[in-house]
C-alpha cells in the first residue's frame, strides 16, 4: 500500500509541473499575438496563411486589402478596425479593384480577357486574380509553391478546366480534356521532369490576357499561332506555315492517348482528316503497334515461361 501511495504522490507532482509548463507554452503564442495584427485573434488560420504572403513580407497588413484601420489596440478592435473604408470580404466581382490599386498593368490586361468578360456577364465562377495567385497565401511567381509558378501553372488551370461540372455551366460546353491532352505533348513530359523552359498553358494562351481561340485578337487564334509559337524564347526563326500552325496542339497530341485515338468516330471530321493523316494512318499505326507489341512479347515471353517450366521436368537438358 505504501508503495502505491508513494508512486501516486510522485506522479501527481509531475502532473502539476506538466500543467504549468503546458500553460506557459500556450501563453507564449497568445502573448506574442498581442503585438501582431489584431485580426489574428479571430482569424487565426487566415492570418497564418497571410504570413506566407509575399505582401506580408514587404510590410502589408490586412487593412491594405480589406480597408479599415490598422490600429492594433485589442480593446477597440471591432470599433476601430472595421471603421472607415472597411470592405470586408471582396466579392469575385470586385476583387480586381483591390489588386488594381497596385497592379495596374496586369488588371488592365485581365479586364480584356475572356475570364473577366464572363464574370461581367454573370458567370462569377470564371477565374479572377485569387484563383490563380491564391487568396491570403499569395506567393511570388518564382516561389515553387506559388500556384502561378511555371511548374504549377497546368495544375492551376486544370483546377477549373478539368472540372466537368464547372465547365458545363457554359451552354456550348468547354472541353475538359485540355490538361490530359497537354500531358501528351513533349512540353509536359519535359516540364514534369524539371525542364523549365518549355511552354505551359500561359505561354500560349497568355496569363492575364487569356482569350478564346475563336477571338481574332487571341494569341491562339489560328492566324496568330505562328507568332505565338515563334516567340523569341520558344521556337524563333522557325517557319510555321499557316496550315501547320493552325493545328490545335491539344487535339493533335490527344491522338496518342487511347481514348480519342481508338474512338475516332467522336473526332471532329476536319481534325481527323488532317491529323490522322492519309487513310487515318495515326489510328492504324497505333493499333498496329498495340497488336505487334502484345503478340511479339506475348509469344516470346510465353516461350520463355515454357522453357523455364520444361526444365523442371527434364533435369538435365544436355
Amino acid at each position: 500500500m505504501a508503495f502505491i501511495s508513494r508512486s501516486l504522490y510522485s506522479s501527481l507532482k509531475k502532473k502539476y509541473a506538466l500543467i504549468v509548463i503546458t500553460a506557459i507554452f500556450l501563453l507564449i503564442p497568445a502573448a506574442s499575438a498581442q503585438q501582431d495584427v489584431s485580426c489574428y485573434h479571430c482569424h487565426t488560420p487566415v492570418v497564418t496563411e497571410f504570413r506566407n504572403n509575399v505582401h506580408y513580407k514587404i510590410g502589408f497588413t490586412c487593412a491594405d486589402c480589406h480597408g479599415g484601420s490598422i490600429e492594433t489596440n485589442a480593446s477597440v478592435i471591432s470599433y476601430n478596425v472595421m471603421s472607415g473604408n472597411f470592405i470586408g470580404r471582396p466579392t469575385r466581382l470586385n476583387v480586381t479593384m483591390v489588386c488594381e490599386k497596385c497592379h495596374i498593368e496586369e488588371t488592365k490586361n485581365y479586364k480584356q480577357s475572356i475570364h473577366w468578360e464572363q464574370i461581367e456577364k454573370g458567370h462569377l465562377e470564371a477565374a479572377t486574380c485569387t484563383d490563380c495567385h491564391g487568396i491570403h497565401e499569395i506567393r511570388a511567381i518564382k516561389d515553387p509553391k506559388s500556384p502561378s509558378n511555371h511548374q504549377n501553372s497546368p495544375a492551376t488551370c486544370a483546377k477549373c478546366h478539368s472540372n466537368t461540372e464547372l465547365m458545363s455551366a457554359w451552354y456550348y460546353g468547354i472541353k475538359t480534356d485540355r490538361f490530359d491532352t497537354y500531358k501528351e505533348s513533349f512540353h509536359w513530359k519535359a516540364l514534369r521532369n524539371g525542364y523549365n523552359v518549355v511552354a505551359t498553358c500561359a505561354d500560349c494562351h497568355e496569363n492575364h490576357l487569356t482569350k478564346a481561340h475563336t477571338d481574332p485578337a487571341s494569341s491562339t487564334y489560328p492566324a496568330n499561332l505562328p507568332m505565338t509559337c515563334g516567340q523569341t524564347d520558344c521556337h524563333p526563326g522557325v517557319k510555321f506555315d499557316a496550315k501547320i500552325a493552325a493545328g490545335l496542339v491539344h487535339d493533335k497530341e490527344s491522338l496518342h492517348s487511347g481514348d480519342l485515338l481508338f474512338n475516332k468516330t467522336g473526332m471532329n471530321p476536319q481534325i481527323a482528316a488532317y491529323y490522322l493523316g492519309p487513310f487515318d494512318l495515326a489510328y492504324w499505326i497505333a493499333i498496329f503497334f498495340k497488336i505487334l507489341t502484345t503478340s511479339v512479347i506475348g509469344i516470346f515471353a510465353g516461350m520463355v515461361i515454357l522453357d523455364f517450366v520444361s526444365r523442371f521436368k527434364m533435369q538435365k537438358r544436355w
Partner: protein
Amino acid sequence: MVKQRLIEVSGSQKLAGDNKMGEVFFKRFTFNQLVQHWIMIGSFMLLVVTGMPVKFPDAWWSPVIIGLVGGFEMRTTLHHAAGIGMVILGIYHVTFHLFVDKESLLERKIMPTLTDAKDFWQTIMFYLGKAEQPKYGRYSWKEKFDYWGAFWGMVMMCVTGLVLMFPFIAMNFIPFAYVHLATIIHTDEALLATLFIFIVHWWNVHYSPEVFPMSKAWLTGNLSEEQMKHEHPLEYEEAMRQMQENTANSS
C-alpha cells in the same frame, strides 16, 4: 554449286599453353561484329535510360532517372548523341555487309527459311515434352528473329528519331501529321524493343540455365565444342566434315 565458306575452328593449344590439349573453339562472330554489338549495347542502354522517362513522364522513377543522368537538358543531349551513334552503326552495318563483305545476299544463313517455321513449332512441342529439340544450323530461328527484329527496329527508330530530332526541318518536307506519326512509331517501337531485349534476348543469352550467367560469345566471339554440339549441331557437323576434307586434301 555454292561454295561453302569455311567455318573457322581454332584450337586452344595455339592460344594459351598446352594444358588444354584438344579443346577447340568455333568462331561465332568476327571482331568486327563483336565491336558492332558492343557499340549497339552501349547506345541502346543509354537510349533506353534517357528515353523511357519521356515515354512515361508521370511515373515516379522518371524524375529520379532524369536527376541521375544530370538534368533534362543533359538527358536530351545524351539521347541525341547515343541516337546519332546508333544511326552511324546502322549505316556502317548495312554498308559493310552489302559492299565490303561480298557474300551473295540470298545465300546468307541469316535469311529466314521454311525450316525456321518448322523449328518454331518443334521448339514449342519440345518445351511441352512432345518432341526432340530441333537441330539448328548456323542460326536458330530465335537468333534470326533477334537479328531481323533489331534490323526492323533500327530502321524505324533511326528514321523517326531523326524526324523528331529536327521536327521543324522535317516539316519543310513532310506534312505535320507525319511528324506526329513519328512520335507514335518512335515511342511504341522503343517500348517493344526494350521489352524484347530485356525479357527475351536476355533470357536466351543471360538468364537461361543453359548459359547462366552469360554466353561469353559476345566477349570472345567463340563457342566451345560442347556449346557448339548442343546449340548448332548441324553447323558442327559441317565444320567437322570440312576439317576432314581439308586434312584429306592437304595430306
